[in-house]
């Protein structure tokens, strides 16, 4: 293979030899190369296939805007699709593969699409695949997805780490070309904290690629001097490989630092990428300008590229795009390419200039004026060009320049639209305030001297502006050059989406005249490059087609992110259990030792059942219920929210929070409380105990613990700031266990210090501070969720495991069992206690049968709205019990209730089963249900209709308390 590596020059380390593969073929390159430059140096221009037509494609650009040379980089879990070969730094061992081709890049069957290209015009999806409708989902879409794909993602987990970081500065400079360097230097010398970020692997921007002269030295050497000074200053942070991708409220910038994308694998102690959030007092956009391609026939043949890209490959990477070059331009900057290529010893056939005259220096290269390239000949490489006057020129590479577009993206991220500037033929940034300003060519100042001066002026934070060095300016004159209409071949406007120049007038003709509509109809400006190269040409062509000015057509909306960002960078370290922590109760180890099966509820791991050998969940839970009801059981209830409330007005505060009254609660007693939302619907429930005149401990449901705490804070601080009360969550500070069953007192008596437990010393609903196990402080509550004679014991969290083990030991003689939330749930359904299924955000206190709890003697949250007509209607669904008429029948949660003779319909719906359990005490399935006017319908037989699972049975409405309706066991 012929080498296209120039003999000298370039910012590459020729002593290094880096081995890499592209589509399995081995190549070598040097330190300092990109994947694109190394391939070009190896004579490889064919780097990809296009999206729709599968046309052979090579690089167009030498930077972030690259639409064509997208490759799959690396392999295994590190495989990354759609990486731009122009931005991939070469390293030893790099593996890259081309995309969107089958069976091979060189011979791609998909290219037959080109033959059927009349089918693939603007809007082709809508036109071709609309009929028959049923074909879309099953046939058309999967085929299109397969054929018109970009790269494929790895299905393996990403083995690398990602970080998030924050930075604050007085001045953020985005871009490190001549403007950015001057701005950073000015800000740094004014003493501010400066961050200089640039997406490139090395700082210097265009000065790494262009032959300039500043302050009597080469542009590159001048940049090195400035960078050395900046690096020596403690108030300056230099951030190469850092793309500022978004501008957000509060002058906050998002930036991706590619910490380790340039090595084969990151060290285990470093991330691959870091997502920075940079909070800048001021910022300068010095992102430079982007050269535009020109739409002419075959402007996508590998070897056709931007003029600036061609000289970048030569000047910076010492890689020649060809042996014999034609330059096609409508502005002066194309002449630089001709001169630079000639200086590198590459033959330049001619400069094709669409204009009548130019003052630019052609360096002796013949200039053919008032002509344009109509067509490029060649398939997988350039063979020659044919001009509009039918002149044919042989060449193997084409440099094109349609003009320059300031890179305004970031300045438009907060909604403002850029303005058209006729003098430079480009959109310039909108007014963005003082905190963020564009400078240099990003602001439409296209001469080097203007860039240096603008950077100095906008970077200076205080005092006199920085002195501006002298430099040599290149000519900059530009005429419109968007589309060569004499072309017969395909003239692409948007390479990545395969949109041609003809698609835009067609879109306008079919009614899609607005740029936002034309964009969506033709797909111009979509995908990974977001139209960085093609948009302005598209706007100009649409303007002509619709008889409007470019300014009238305007741009589409610029949104973050400037370049694609990996999901890993957004996720940062917050993956797996770092995303959502696991909460374990203080009794976790105790439950684990006893073989508990845990269930994740919210963040908590709750012991769900404790199976013996051979038991399934139902057998285990049933055994746990029977053992508890016949003897004694212990259950971890530590996940309930616990809030300690203290202060002179603690009682008054609780009176406002709950619909019932707590200020009247006696010290040493507990009371069940019901909390409403301000709209009158039930919010939460739990018991609250009064430990002293000014000290209560309240409990919340597990699910609502955090929300209730936030609501209390709101109620106190925003609604009732006059109340003298403080409160704190102590959920994690206390381990709490329920000890239930006829033998619960005898069991607990063995571990409680001093106290002789009786109905007199610990009556029903007592709340006592005691000690256990020889001095461990504890709180003893006589509460029952199971309906049994039962207690809850709370000890400081660290004593939890010990206390639970001691209780198990104490209860051994009574056959104590640990029981989980399944058994707990069975027992509460047996007792008709409401829980999550009934406290579902639509039920009132009255719906739950708790209407009498609502005080009429005080104001509380939800009082007034609960009185509304719709919430007091007697036909509302309220809680009842449901049992199958045939005791052997199974009923399931979610089944609907219908009158016996009614057909299933929304109009006939009477309610539904909210909680269902197998009752080991009654030997049948039982349910709680929400049924219209249910309390008046006890005894009525109804259809229990489960359309979802195709099951139906006859049930009977009954009292929600299925078991021990007289509550005898509670006081046994």
């Amino acid at each position: 293979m012929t080498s296209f590596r120039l003999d000298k020059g370039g910012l590459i380390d020729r002593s290094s030899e880096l081995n890499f593969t592209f589509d399995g073929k081995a190549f070598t390159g040097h330190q300092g190369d990109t994947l694109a430059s190394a391939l070009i140096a190896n004579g490889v221009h064919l780097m990809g296939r296009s999206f729709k037509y599968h046309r052979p494609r090579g690089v167009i650009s030498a930077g972030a805007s690259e639409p064509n040379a997208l490759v799959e980089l690396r392999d295994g879990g590190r495989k990354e699709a759609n990486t731009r070969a122009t931005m991939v730094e070469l390293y030893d061992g790099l593996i890259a593969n081309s995309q969107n081709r089958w069976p091979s890049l060189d011979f791609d069957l998909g290219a037959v699409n080109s033959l059927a290209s009349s089918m693939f015009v603007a809007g082709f999806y809508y036109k071709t695949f609309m009929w028959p409708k049923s074909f879309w989902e099953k046939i058309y879409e999967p085929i299109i997805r397969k054929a018109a794909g970009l790269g494929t993602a790895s299905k393996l987990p990403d083995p690398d780490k990602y970080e998030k970081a924050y930075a604050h500065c007085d001045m953020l400079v985005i871009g490190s070309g001549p403007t950015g360097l001057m701005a950073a230097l000015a800000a740094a010398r004014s003493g501010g904290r400066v961050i200089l970020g640039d997406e490139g692997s090395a700082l210097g921007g265009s000065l790494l690629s262009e032959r300039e002269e500043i302050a009597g030295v080469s542009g590159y050497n001048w940049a090195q001097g400035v960078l050395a000074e900046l690096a020596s200053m403690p108030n300056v942070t230099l951030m190469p490989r850092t793309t500022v991708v978004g501008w957000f409220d509060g002058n906050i910038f998002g930036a991706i630092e590619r910490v380790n994308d340039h090595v084969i694998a990151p060290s285990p102690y470093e991330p691959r990428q870091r997502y920075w959030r940079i909070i800048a007092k001021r910022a300068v956009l010095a992102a430079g300008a982007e050269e535009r391609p020109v739409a002419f026939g075959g402007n996508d043949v590998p070897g056709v590229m931007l003029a600036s890209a061609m000289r970048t490959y030569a000047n910076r990477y010492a890689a020649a795009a060809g042996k014999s070059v034609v330059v096609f331009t409508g502005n002066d900057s194309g002449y630089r390419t001709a001169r630079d290529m000639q200086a590198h010893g590459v033959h330049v056939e001619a400069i094709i200039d669409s204009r009548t005259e130019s003052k630019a220096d052609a360096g002796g290269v013949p200039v053919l004026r008032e002509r344009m390239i109509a067509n490029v000949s060649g398939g997988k490489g350039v063979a020659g060009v044919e001009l509009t006057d039918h002149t044919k020129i042989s060449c193997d590479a084409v440099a094109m320049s349609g003009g320059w577009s300031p890179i305004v993206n970031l300045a438009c991220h907060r909604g403002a639209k850029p303005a058209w500037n006729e003098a430079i033929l480009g959109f310039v940034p909108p007014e963005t305030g003082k905190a963020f300003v564009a400078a240099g060519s990003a602001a439409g100042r296209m001469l080097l001297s203007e860039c240096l001066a603008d950077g100095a002026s906008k970077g200076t934070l205080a005092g006199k502006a920085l002195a501006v060095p002298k430099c040599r300016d290149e000519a900059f004159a530009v005429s419109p050059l968007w589309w060569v209409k004499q072309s017969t071949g395909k003239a692409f406007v948007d390479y990545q989406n395969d949109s041609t120049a003809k698609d835009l007038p067609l879109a306008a003709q079919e009614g899609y005249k607005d740029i936002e509509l034309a964009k969506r109809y033709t797909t111009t400006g979509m995908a990974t490059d977001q139209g960085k190269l093609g948009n302005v040409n598209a706007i100009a062509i649409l303007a002509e087609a619709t008889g409007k000015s470019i300014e009238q057509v305007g741009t589409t909306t610029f949104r973050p992110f400037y370049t694609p960002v990996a999901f890993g960078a957004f996720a940062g370290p917050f993956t797996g259990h770092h995303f959502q922590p696991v909460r374990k109760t203080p009794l976790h180890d105790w439950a684990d030792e006893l073989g508990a099966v845990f269930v994740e509820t919210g963040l908590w791991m709750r012991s769900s059942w404790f199976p013996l050998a051979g038991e399934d969940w139902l057998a285990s839970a049933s055994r746990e219920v029977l053992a508890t009801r016949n003897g004694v059981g212990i259950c971890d209830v530590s996940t309930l929210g616990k809030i300690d409330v203290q202060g002179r007005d603690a009682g008054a505060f609780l009176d406002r929070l709950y619909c019932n009254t707590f200020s009247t609660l006696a010290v040493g007693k507990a009371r069940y409380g019901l909390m409403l939302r301000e709209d009158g619907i039930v919010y939460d429930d739990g018991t609250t105990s009064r430990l002293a005149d000014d000290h209560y401990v309240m409990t919340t449901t597990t699910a609502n613990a955090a929300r209730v705490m936030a609501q209390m804070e709101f109620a106190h601080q925003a609604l009732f700031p006059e109340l003298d009360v403080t409160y704190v969550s102590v959920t994690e500070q206390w381990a709490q266990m329920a000890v239930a069953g006829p033998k619960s007192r005898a069991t607990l008596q063995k571990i409680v210090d001093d106290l002789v437990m009786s109905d007199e010393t610990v009556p029903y609903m007592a709340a006592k501070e005691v000690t256990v196990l020889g001095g461990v402080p504890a709180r003893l509550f006589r509460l029952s969720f199971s309906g049994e004679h039962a207690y809850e014991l709370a000890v400081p969290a660290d004593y939890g495991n010990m206390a639970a083990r001691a209780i198990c030991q104490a209860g051994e003689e009574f056959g104590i069992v640990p029981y989980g939330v399944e058994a707990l749930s069975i027992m509460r359904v047996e007792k008709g206690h409401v829980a999550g299924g009934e406290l579902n955000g639509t039920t009132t206190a009255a719906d739950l049968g708790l209407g009498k709890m609502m005080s009429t003697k005080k104001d509380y949250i939800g009082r007034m709205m609960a009185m509304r007509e719709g919430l007091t209607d007697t036909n509302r669904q309220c809680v009842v019990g449901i049992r199958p008429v045939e005791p052997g029948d199974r009923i399931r949660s979610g089944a609907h209730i219908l009158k016996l003779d009614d057909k299933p319909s929304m109009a006939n719906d009477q309610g539904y089963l909210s909680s269902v359990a197998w009752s080991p005490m009654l030997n049948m399935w039982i349910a709680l249900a929400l049924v219209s006017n249910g309390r008046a319908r006890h005894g009525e037989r109804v259809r229990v209709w489960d359309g979802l699972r195709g099951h139906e049975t006859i049930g009977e409405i009954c009292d929600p308390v299925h078991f021990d309706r007289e509550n005898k066991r509670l006081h046994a």
Partner: protein
Amino acid sequence: MLIPCPHCGTRPVEEFTFLGDASVKRPTSNDPASMDQWFDYVYLRDNPKGRFDEYAHHAGGCRAWLVVSRNTATHEVYGCVTARDYAKAGGKS
């Protein structure tokens, strides 16, 4: 967006949760005749363009309820006081 919390200093917006218009005042009457006021308080909210006083809970910080005054169109933050001070000042930031 950055929020100047009176307790914690300037903090990123992600640390806060929001609860809407802070200028509405909870009625004090439990007289059924006041139902309209209650309905307005619970359900009706303006959606102004421009300056807006909004409840914010610094859940990822000091846990104080705050009132952030900001421009809904530009997201410029004018100031931030505690909900307690806001309530005591009669609903003014």
